[in-house]
């Protein structure tokens, strides 16, 4: 059973389109995240949610809108896609928010290519 699963794994889409990436965790964790790994391989946090409440929003453009219907799901919706949005997006979860030594579990990543 995959602990953190995200779909789709690969997505190629045109500029200007709107797309969503779904994420689910079956670990019973309270906190979920979205990370982005860009072409320079930087792995940076975008958002974190704790019990469906937005905690961290790292100056991500408004075109990115996370939605957490329950604490086991955190979906990422992206409007008006731009070429620079091409990256790998990782969903992740952890038991608590920011607790020392709190291990974060990652999904396999979603490869988004905007053409």
């Amino acid at each position, binding site marked *: 059973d995959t602990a*953190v699963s995200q779909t789709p794994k690969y997505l190629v889409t045109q500029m200007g389109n709107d797309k969503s990436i779904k994420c689910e965790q079956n670990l019973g964790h309270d906190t979920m*995240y979205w*990370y982005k790994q860009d072409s*320079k*391989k*930087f*792995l*940076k*946090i975008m958002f*974190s949610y704790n019990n469906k409440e937005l*905690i*961290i929003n790292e100056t991500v453009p408004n075109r990115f809108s996370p939605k957490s219907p329950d604490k086991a799901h955190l979906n990422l919706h992206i409007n008006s896609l731009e070429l620079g949005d091409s990256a790998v997006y*990782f969903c*992740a979860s952890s038991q608590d*928010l*920011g607790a*020392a*030594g*709190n*291990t*974060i*579990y*990652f*999904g*396999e*990543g979603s490869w988004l290519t905007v053409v």
Partner: protein
Amino acid sequence: DQQVKQNSPSLSVQEGRISILNCDYTNSMFDYFLWYKKYPAEGPTFLISISSIKDKNEDGRFTVFLNKSAKHLSLHIVPSQPGDSAVYFCAASGFGKLIFGTGTRLQVFP
């Protein structure tokens, strides 16, 4: 402004020898440090961590050393195995999030 840095993008080591991966950080408020391993087309997986109040943590072939005065940590893998070939990310925990370095690609050759 990169708070966690891995200055070596790649490292090549012979099987059986020691692999040493280095990481530097800038913020003394980080309270925990972690290493993640990533294979191609997979998400990062947790490998080992260390609290800021300790200077060493060992788990099998993996040992992490922390030098707080130098704001430096390192991951030692001994003996290195071909299956260890992957990208290793150093991460620092603080302010409710993990901040990652850019990774070091380790290749272990026979």
